[in-house]
């Protein structure tokens, strides 16, 4: 196979200037020209044909989602761009916005054209000041150059305004309906679905929510065509009609106990081993990996024996052998053999307990119970029945068991279930011996 050439990071890796002028000199906004020569329906079709799946975590086919908008709607229709990037250990959206904002903006303009949106909201988490400033600068340049505003690039009737909306620090704003509520200036309480945002979203109007990386991919699909996009990645399994395949490039973030934490772009389907050894410089201090978080902490864990798992949409999932929740954000975090899984799980449970929005009792209470139990094991006070209770709570909360409004609860239960399934002996040894975890011996409990 030919050496993979970065697509999304192409300009970033050569430290190209984020200015409009430099972006255009590199062939930028060519894709928009091509898109505007097509009908919106044909642009959507190109994205459907590319089999691009959403990069925000759920992996829903992007073009298909666009077709869910009501036909011949009088408008307004909104595009909401999800730059809340809240899944721990994920930082690819930040890099894209900060270092190549026009690539993202071009994708937003193309998507708005395809879905006939005249307003696009860019929802950025407050913590990303650098990315926000870079995007605002790009938006200002685009207005001045006629790439935003009225009759864009001379195309009669194609108007688009882009507004940046800043968050205020809440993980749940990343969930698409939580994001919409937050955009409306409310608490980010996810909505009951249906209706899905495509039918009734922001300000009760049809709305498409897409992730930053998804839209950056749209730019290149329009520039180089769906077939080119499909030449990368893991093809769909012909024997499985429900497999939508994993096509295109993906930004993988590598963090935790590796020598060189980084963000690399590779075709979907690279193995965890290759990411860690080749791109992350191997596990630090000459140690071995004990566990690998494959795509943000909501997804569960791979064990050292599962290190050859491909990181794509088909190889990770509730019905695969590894049983992870999915590819998630493809943020790989390595945990070395010296780290206690009880500590890691405690850290994860604390996160979800803090970030649950509190609307659904099973999530609000369940995340609190799980935290309490793991904390007690960490302090050497675990009880024999604790592991079963943890698994039971993990099984009961979420949209899969049908007890909650949004997927935060599934993501909170998943690492708990997986940690106990895959590292049960370690948890049992803490409970049996009554010893405190390593970190707790070093620092006072918070």
């Amino acid at each position: 196979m030919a050496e993979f050439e970065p697509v999304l990071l192409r300009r970033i890796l050569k430290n190209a200037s984020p200015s409009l002028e430099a972006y255009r000199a590199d062939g930028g906004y060519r894709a928009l020209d091509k898109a505007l020569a097509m009908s919106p329906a044909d642009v959507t079709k190109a994205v459907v044909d590319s089999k691009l799946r959403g990069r925000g975590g759920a992996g829903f086919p992007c073009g298909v989602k666009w077709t869910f908008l009501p036909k011949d709607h009088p408008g307004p229709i909104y595009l909401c761009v999800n730059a809340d990037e809240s899944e721990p250990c994920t930082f690819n959206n930040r890099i894209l916005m900060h270092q190549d904002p026009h690539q993202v903006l071009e994708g937003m303009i193309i998507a708005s054209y395809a879905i006939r949106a005249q307003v696009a909201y860019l929802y950025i988490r407050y913590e990303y000041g650098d990315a926000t400033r870079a995007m605002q600068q790009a938006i200002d340049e685009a207005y001045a150059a006629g790439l935003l505003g009225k009759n864009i690039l001379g195309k009669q009737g194609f108007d688009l305004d882009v507004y940046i909306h800043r968050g205020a620090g809440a993980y749940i704003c990343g969930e698409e309906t939580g994001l919409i509520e937050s955009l409306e200036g409310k608490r980010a309480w996810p909505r009951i679905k249906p209706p899905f945002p495509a039918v009734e979203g922001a300000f009760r109007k049809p709305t498409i929510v897409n992730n930053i990386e998804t839209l950056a991919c749209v730019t290149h699909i329009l520039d180089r065509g769906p077939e080119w996009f499909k030449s990368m990645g893991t093809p769909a399994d012909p024997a499985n009609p429900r497999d939508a395949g994993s096509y295109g490039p993906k930004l993988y973030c590598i963090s935790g106990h590796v020598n060189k934490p980084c963000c690399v772009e590779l075709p979907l389907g690279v193995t965890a081993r290759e990411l860690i050894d080749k791109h992350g410089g191997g596990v630090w201090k000459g140690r071995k990996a004990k566990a690998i978080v494959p795509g943000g902490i909501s997804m569960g864990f791979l064990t050292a024996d599962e290190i050859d798992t491909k990181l794509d949409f088909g190889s990770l999932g509730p019905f695969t052998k590894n049983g992870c929740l999915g590819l998630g954000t493809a943020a790989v975090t390595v945990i070395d053999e010296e780290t206690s899984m009880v500590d890691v799980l405690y850290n994860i449970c604390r996160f979800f307990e803090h970030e649950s929005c509190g609307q659904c009792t099973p999530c609000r209470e369940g995340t609190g119970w799980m935290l309490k139990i793991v904390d007690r094991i960490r302090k050497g006070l675990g009880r024999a029945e604790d592991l079963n209770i943890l698994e039971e709570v993990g099984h009961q909360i979420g949209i899969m068991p049908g007890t909650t409004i949004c997927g935060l609860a599934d993501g909170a239960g998943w690492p708990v279930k997986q940690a106990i399934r895959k590292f049960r002996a370690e948890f049992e040894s803490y409970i049996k011996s009554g010893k405190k975890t390593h970190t707790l011996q070093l620092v006072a409990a918070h």
Partner: protein
Amino acid sequence: MAPASHPSGDKRFKILDVTMKRHLYQHDALIEVLHKAQELFGFLELDVLLYVARGLKLPPSRVYGVATFYHLFSLKPQGEHTCVVCMGTACFVKGADRLLAAIEQQAGIKAGQTTPNGKLSVMTARCIGACGIAPAVVFDGVTAGQQTPETVQQQLKGWL
């Protein structure tokens, strides 16, 4: 009609008026207006929240609900300096809790508190997207990577 400004005559309310006006007093601007208010006043006093509620014609319960929902809004005064330790998983497995313990010990307060002299507030955060340089700490808005108990204590020396 724009509401009359605050009776105290404090200029900062005038600036807040301008912000609300720029957003056409729209309800969806609430979060942005609260950011401005916090920037101006340092924290969100009840009086300020009521003022915003009146300006945007929103029930005070809605404004209070939003101000307390989002973690970055503070209803108590903050210290002159802030030190935010990332507790995200990548930072945690690389010793963020040891950093926090060192800071708490040096400052004599717990995360979420401000020193009695009002100099320093210590906080924790969820992942701030700086996992490549974990463990990360944000000192007065500036992110510092690869921190150790020694480097954080060095940084805080002049601030206490």
